[in-house]
C-alpha cells in the first residue's frame, strides 16, 4: 500500500489454541500474533476453522487448551464482555445485525459500553440520559458519514441490500471505537464494486483511526492486496504464516488451495 503505517509491537497473541466440538476438532494448536496498527489476514478454505478462531478470540467459544494474551494480560479463555471492554470489535460472516432496528439504532447499540446512565435516569430521560443519547448519536453520525450511508439512516436494516447491511455491520463495530477490529469475511457475497468500497473502508479505518485489523477472507486476491501479514489455516491447522509474498510462495498453501478449488 502507498500509505505507510507505523506498525507497533504485538498487541494480540494467540498461543496453542485447540478447540473441539464433541469429537470434531475445529482447531488444533493454533498460534499466531497480531501487531498494533497492522492488517492481519487469516485465510483458508471453507471449514478451515477461520470463524472458530475469531469466536475463540472474542469469547463466543471456549477453547479446550491454549492461551490468548491481549496487551500483556493472558487469558485461558475470553469473556465476551471483557473482550469488548478491552476494545476488540467484530463483524460477522453471515450478518448478525439486529433486524428489528433501524440503521442508527444498530450503530447505537455499539455505543452501549460508552453509555453509563442508569435505568432510572433513562426512564425519566432528562438531563444526563438525554445528553448521553445526543452525544453518542453525534458520534454515530460521524460513522454514518464515514461509511456514506446517510440516505439510509432511519431504514430498518432488514430492508437494506446485502452490501449495505455489511457496511452497517462494520459501522456497528466501529461505533465501539475499537483498537482491534475482527472482520469475518467482510467481502463475502459482494460484487466487485462493493468489494472495492469495502476494501477502501477497511483501509481508511486502519489509516484514519489507526485500528489494528484482523480479517478473514477466502478471496485470496483481496487479502494479498490489503494485508501486511497472513495466517493460513487448513482443517484447523496452521499451514502458513508471513507476508503475502512469503505465503504465496509457501508450497503447503498452494497445495491446500489447489486441493480445494480456490
Amino acid at each position, binding site marked *: 500500500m502507498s500509505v505507510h503505517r507505523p506498525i507497533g509491537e504485538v498487541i494480540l497473541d494467540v498461543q496453542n489454541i485447540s478447540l473441539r466440538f464433541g469429537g470434531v476438532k475445529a482447531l488444533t494448536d493454533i498460534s499466531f500474533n497480531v501487531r498494533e496498527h497492522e492488517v492481519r489476514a487469516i485465510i483458508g478454505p471453507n471449514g478451515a476453522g477461520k470463524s472458530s478462531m475469531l469466536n475463540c478470540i472474542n*469469547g*463466543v467459544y471456549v477453547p479446550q487448551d491454549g492461551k490468548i494474551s491481549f496487551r500483556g494480560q493472558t487469558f485461558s479463555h475470553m469473556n465476551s*464482555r471483557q473482550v*469488548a471492554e478491552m476494545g476488540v470489535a467484530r463483524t460477522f460472516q453471515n450478518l448478525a445485525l439486529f433486524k428489528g*432496528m433501524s440503521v442508527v439504532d444498530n450503530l447505537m447499540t455499539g455505543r*452501549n459500553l460508552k453509555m453509563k446512565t442508569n435505568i432510572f435516569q433513562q426512564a425519566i430521560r432528562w438531563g444526563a440520559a438525554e445528553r448521553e443519547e445526543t452525544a453518542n448519536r453525534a458520534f454515530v453520525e460521524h460513522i454514518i458519514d464515514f461509511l456514506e450511508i446517510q440516505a439510509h439512516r432511519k431504514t430498518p436494516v432488514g430492508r437494506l441490500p446485502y452490501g449495505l447491511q455489511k457496511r452497517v455491520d462494520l459501522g456497528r463495530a466501529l461505533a465501539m471505537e475499537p483498537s482491534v477490529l475482527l472482520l469475518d469475511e467482510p467481502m463475502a457475497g459482494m460484487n466487485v464494486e462493493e468489494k472495492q468500497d469495502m476494501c477502501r473502508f477497511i483501509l481508511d479505518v486502519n489509516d484514519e483511526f489507526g485500528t489494528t485489523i484482523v480479517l478473514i477472507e477466502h478471496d485470496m486476491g483481496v487479502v494479498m492486496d490489503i494485508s501486511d501479514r497472513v495466517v493460513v489455516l487448513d482443517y484447523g491447522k496452521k499451514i502458513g504464516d508471513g507476508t503475502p509474498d512469503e505465503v504465496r510462495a509457501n508450497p503447503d498453501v498452494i497445495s491446500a488451495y489447489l486441493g480445494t478449488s480456490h
Partner: protein
Amino acid sequence: MLYRENGQFKTSYRADQQIFPIRQDRVVIVAFLALAFVVIPGLASEYMLRAILVPFLILSLAAIGLNILVGYCGQISLGTGAFMAIGAYAAYNFNVRIEGMPLLLSLVMGGVCSTAVGVLFGIPSLRIKGLYLAVATLAAQFFTDWAFLRIKWFTNDSSSGSVNVSGLQILGWHIDTPADKYLFCLGLVCVCALMAKNLVRGHIGREWMAMRDMDVAAAVIGIRPVYAKLSAFAVSSFFVGIAGALWGFVHLGSWEPAAFSIDRSFQLLFMVIIGGLGSIMGSFFGAAFIIVLPIVLDNLPYWFGIPVDTALASHLTNMVFGALIVFFLVVEPHGLARLWSTAKEKLRLWPFPH
C-alpha cells in the same frame, strides 16, 4: 394525505429523537390526551367508565409490561398473571399492615415486590431458552396461585381468602366515583407509558432488542446477557405489578387469587400479540381490542334480536379469540401496531404507493 412535512427540519439531535418527530402527530396526540382527560370523564356513562375504560387502562399497563419482556427482549412469559397477583397482594399488605400508608406508595411497593420476584423467576432465562423458558414461567403462575390461596399471611388471615380495600385517596382526593377512578388510572398509566417509552428508546431498550434479535452479536459488542435479560424481567414485572395493584385496588376493590389466574396471563399475551410485539402503542391497541371484542360479541346477537344463551356466547367468544390469534399470527405477526404504522406511512406518501 394530511401530512405536510416541508419545513419540519431538525437542527438538533434532541429534536430529531423526540417521540413524535412529525408536527401533525404531535397535534393529534395532544388533542387525543385532551379528549381523554377532559371530555371523556364528563361524557362517558358510569358503565362505560367502570366496565370498559378502567379495565382497559389497567390492562394496557400490564400489556406494556409484558410487551417489554416478550416484544422487546424476546423472553416469552406465560406467568404474567402471577406478577399482577404479587403486585396486588403486596400492595394490599403494605396498605393494611402499615398505618397511613399513602396509596401511591403502596401501589409502587406492589410494583417493587413484583420486580423482586420477577428477577427471581427471570434467573432461569439465563440458562433456559425459548419454549423451555415459556413453560418455566408457568411455575411462577401456579406457585403464586397456590401461595395466595394457601398461605394465610398474604391475605392477612381473611377468613374467606378474599381481600378488599376501600376508601382510596391521595392527598385528600377521594377516588370513589368511576370518573375519579378513571382519571387516576389514566394519569398513572400515562406516566408509566411515557417511562416505558423512554426506556425502550434509550440504550437499555436497545440492549433488550439486541438480545432479542441476535444474542451472540449482542454479547460480542459487550452487552451482558444477565443484565439485559434480568433488567427486562425487572422492568416488565414492575409495570405488571403496578397494574395488578391497580386491578385489585381500583377496579375490583375486593378479590381472590382467581382474579389473576393463568387465563389472565394468556389474555395479556393475546393483547400483546394482537396489539403488536415490540410496540408501546400496540399494547394499548391490543388491550382495547381484547376488552371490547367480547362485549361486542355478547351484544351482537341482541342487536340483531337473536337470543343466545350465555354459555354459547362464551364458547363463541373463545372460538373467535382463538381464530383471531391464529389469524393475526398468520396475516400480520406485528399486530395492530404494524397496521397502524403502515397506514400512517401510506398517508405520508399519499398519493404514491411507496
